[in-house]
């Protein structure tokens, strides 16, 4: 017992140093990117490599906008990600409520299908989806980028596990007070699962923000490219102007960085919750 107690007080500094070295090497690429986006071309090509820019310059950020329609890409990404998040949340909140708090024929079969859809990799359905969306004339449209990506299995499963935890007595009480399904959902269920809903929303937004394969396939016109696609083409378009590539990456990462700093706990939670029912 005394040993256990001492362990609580005694901090393990050797492990800390090992972990810190590991952590700093994990962060190194991001630090390098941030510092380099303020460097001049001469600094980038200097040998031995320079840690800090000799002169801090904003030119690279300006160059990104001059070289490619970066603002267009950025707005496209914001627009499609927000739209996708809203739709994903709308569908999965309603579906989770129906799956956990209502009774309808085929409920179990539906849950089972939903679960198994998580095991179908996107690449399997990618080709038929591409052909269908193209046939509908939605290639190179925002709808074409967003609609096929509202696969709600993950968020629905996540929310369902929380909705299921709300006691039915609470719902019955609301029903006695004359609430319909919609009011029960908005006044009873959702206020009690705020944490889960915000985690799912954040997760959905980040998923949409980094989405790559589908937007790459379904867009051919520059004006519909989202940020990740724009960044991919920047590699060839900027021909190894690394300081410009870093400035563009930094701006693309910015929303993620903000989300990460303020909601790291929730992000981690969205990952650990995936492991809940494997």
């Amino acid at each position, binding site marked *: 017992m005394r040993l256990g107690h001492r362990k609580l007080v005694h901090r393990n500094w050797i492990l800390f140093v090992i*972990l*810190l070295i590991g952590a700093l090497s994990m962060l190194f690429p991001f630090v390098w990117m941030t510092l380099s986006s303020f460097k001049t071309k001469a600094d980038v090509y200097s040998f031995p490599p320079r840690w800090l820019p000799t002169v801090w310059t904003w030119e690279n950020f300006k160059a990104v906008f001059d070289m490619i329609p970066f603002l267009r890409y950025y707005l496209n990404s914001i627009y499609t990600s927000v739209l996708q998040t809203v739709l994903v949340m709308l569908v999965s909140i309603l579906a989770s409520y129906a799956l956990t708090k209502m009774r309808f024929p085929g409920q179990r079969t539906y849950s089972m299908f939903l679960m198994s859809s998580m095991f179908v990799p996107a*690449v*399997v359905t990618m080709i038929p989806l591409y052909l269908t969306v193209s046939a509908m004339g939605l290639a190179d449209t925002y709808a074409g980028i967003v609609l096929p990506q509202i696969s709600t299995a993950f968020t629905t499963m996540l929310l369902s596990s929380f909705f299921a935890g709300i006691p039915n007595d609470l719902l019955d009480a609301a029903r006695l007070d004359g609430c319909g399904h919609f009011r029960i959902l908005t006044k009873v269920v959702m206020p009690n699962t705020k944490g889960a809903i915000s985690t799912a929303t954040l997760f959905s937004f980040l998923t949409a923000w*980094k989405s*790559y394969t589908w937007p790459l396939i379904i867009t051919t016109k520059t004006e519909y490219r989202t940020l990740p696609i724009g960044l991919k083409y920047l590699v060839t378009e900027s021909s190894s102007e690394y300081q410009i590539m870093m400035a563009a990456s930094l701006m*693309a*990462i910015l929303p993620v960085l903000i989300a990460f700093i303020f909601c790291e706990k929730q992000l981690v939670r969205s990952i650990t919750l995936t492991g809940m029912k494997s």
Partner: protein
Amino acid sequence: MFIIPVIQVIQLSFTNYNTITGSMSAAGFSNYVYLLTGSTSEYFYQALGHTAIYAAVQLTFDVTLALLIAVMLDANVPLKKFLRASYFAPVVVPIVASSLIWIWFYDVNIGPFNQILSWLGLPACKWLLSEKTSLMSILIFSIWKGLGYNVVLLLAGLQNISDSYLEAGRIDGATGWQLFWKIKLPLLRPIVSFVVMMDLIGAFKVFTEVNVMTPDGGPLRSTMLIVNYIYELAFTNGRMGRASACALILFIIIFLCTLLQRKLGGSKTVDLD
């Protein structure tokens, strides 16, 4: 949302649908025969082989390293939250953005890696530009990117192990090492097997980093993984039938891996909350 596309992809795999010529007719099993024994079947086996190597290496490194890091983080160390966040950061950053940083790291002339090598007096490495090292370069990136996901899951699992088990072990005089091997690791088994499954399935889905860092599958197709091959068949060559057949083969492989993992890893549910 997914049943119809799955039926469609099965149908497509039995046609010779070509988006470039626009031809569409029934083709029986010819797409499968073509992939497995046709004139370019070596591309298929090559992509499958690369994917297998990728899966094995990434899995080995990311699971062992993550287990080590998670165990260390579970000990009484300061700044635990900062450390965990640092390992987790590469997971949340869009792959394209981090790939751009690594393209520079791997630059033969002005990349930091080669600058370090030359500083150490070692010969320069061609990284992404040589067929010998390109897949390895992609793998180093992937290990860096995927590590945090496993760390977070395993750490949550470790923190969830009830103190009463460990206390019982200590009363029986177990050393820290014994506590780990005899109590923590067996209790962690469901999560370890979950992590292994996620890594394995993940390896069969890798596309983005390869597509960004080596757009045409690298020198001599050396980084061509299975999904990149499907992408090439479908969207570069317009061969939707062949690509669908290849996607279905991939699906069957992933399905078998999942089954195998369930058999080996036990079907205990993982509860991390």
